[in-house]
């Protein structure tokens, strides 16, 4: 059984890079790639993947908004991706109360 995975990143090069690196693992199956938060919510609701690689910093609908938008469905496992080491810690601390 494979791990059904969705990749979400607004930079196409980042998606390609992630895809390329995950292709080396036979048990990971990439079912869709999305370039923004709204697409991601739709795709996750449709495909019900096991795992989502989610970019935090995206224009409009960012990674946290995606997670919040999926609270009513059974959310998959998320792996947050970011280039900024301080991006994760600060917003996570802020959001602990809201999520």
């Amino acid at each position, binding site marked *: 059984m494979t791990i059904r995975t969705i990749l979400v990143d*607004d*930079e196409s*090069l*980042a998606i390609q*890079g992630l895809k390329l690196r995950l292709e080396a693992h036979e048990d990971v199956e990439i079912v869709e790639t999305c370039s923004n938060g709204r697409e991601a919510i739709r795709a996750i609701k449709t495909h019900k993947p096991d795992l989502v690689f989610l970019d935090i*910093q995206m*224009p409009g609908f960012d990674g946290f908004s995606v997670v919040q938008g999926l609270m009513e469905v059974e959310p998959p496992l998320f792996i947050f991706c970011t*280039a*900024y080491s301080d991006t994760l810690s600060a917003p996570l601390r802020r959001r602990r109360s809201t999520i």
Partner: protein
Amino acid sequence: MSVHRFQPQPFFADKNRAFWNLQSVGWAGAFLLRGSSTIANGQPLSSLIPVMISTVSGYSVTLLIAVVFRFLQRQRPIVTWGASIVTVVVAAGLVAFIDAWVFSTQNRGSDTAGLQLFLGAFYLSMTLLGAWSALYYAINFYLTVEEQADQLLRLENQASSAQLAMLRYQLNPHFLFNTLNSISTLVLLKQTDRANAMLSRLSSFLRYTLINEPTAQVTIEQEIETLKLYLEIEKMRFEDRLRPVFNIDPAVAQSRLPSLLLQPLVENAIKYAVTPKEEGAEISVTAQPAGENVRIIVSDTGPGLNEGFTRPNNPVSEGTGVGLANIRDRLIQAFGERQSFETRSTPGGFSVLIEMPLNLDEPSRVAA
């Protein structure tokens, strides 16, 4: 034969030499003055002898006084003043005694009383030595003040170059991180031509940022070339969402500005205008003549300042304030009052308007 090159040098550059010159010229002058007044009064030539002896004793005594003063100068002010006055009085007494003794030896049979002679000579030597001491302290005071002013100037220079070094553009490590990641992906994708193009742009950009001295000035043309390198690299990530527009009037292209002055403005525009909007933004850089000045405008079609600040999850914890203040400081360092810096924020975009003098001169090398 050796030829002495004339080297203009301040008179007090060599303090010791200046002292001996002043001392000799001063006492020679005093001798000439007193001697000529003696002759003019119809005295015989032989009466020049006591004048000469008096001058020589004055000359010698003041050498001793100088030694004492040099020591007294380092004491507390009250000691310096008190002991100096005592020294002058004692020295004047000594000179007056010699004068009176010489006079009375030369004019045996004169009926002037010894004490009267002494008091007359004392008055004269006191005046001379008093004036000498006043001059000595005045010159020393002047030299001390001058030295302190020099020191202050040196310190100020040090401080301002340190400040400049601090204000200098610093490469954003995230930029390097993202770019190298992207290039790594391009290599994995076997897009070697694109990867190579990115690497050479990155290295050109790095060379430009690494060699930039804090005081270096470059032409607007060079600055724009660097901005283009940077934007080309960022376009690899943002693709069509990043839309740079350049409007550089050829009349100002060769005008000079501090290097990498505009770089942080473009970085800000990417951070606050391109990143948060799905459709991206236009970043325009305009340089045009404005009377005697050059007007440079860096603007974007992003959400403007306030919205950018209140945006939730804004990944950048530090505001634009520091970066903009930094640019303003660099402008002040480079052009003093002859520049202006304005920001305008509307819901349709953020823009920075800079004015600086048209500066077509080759940079004068600043001595390090």
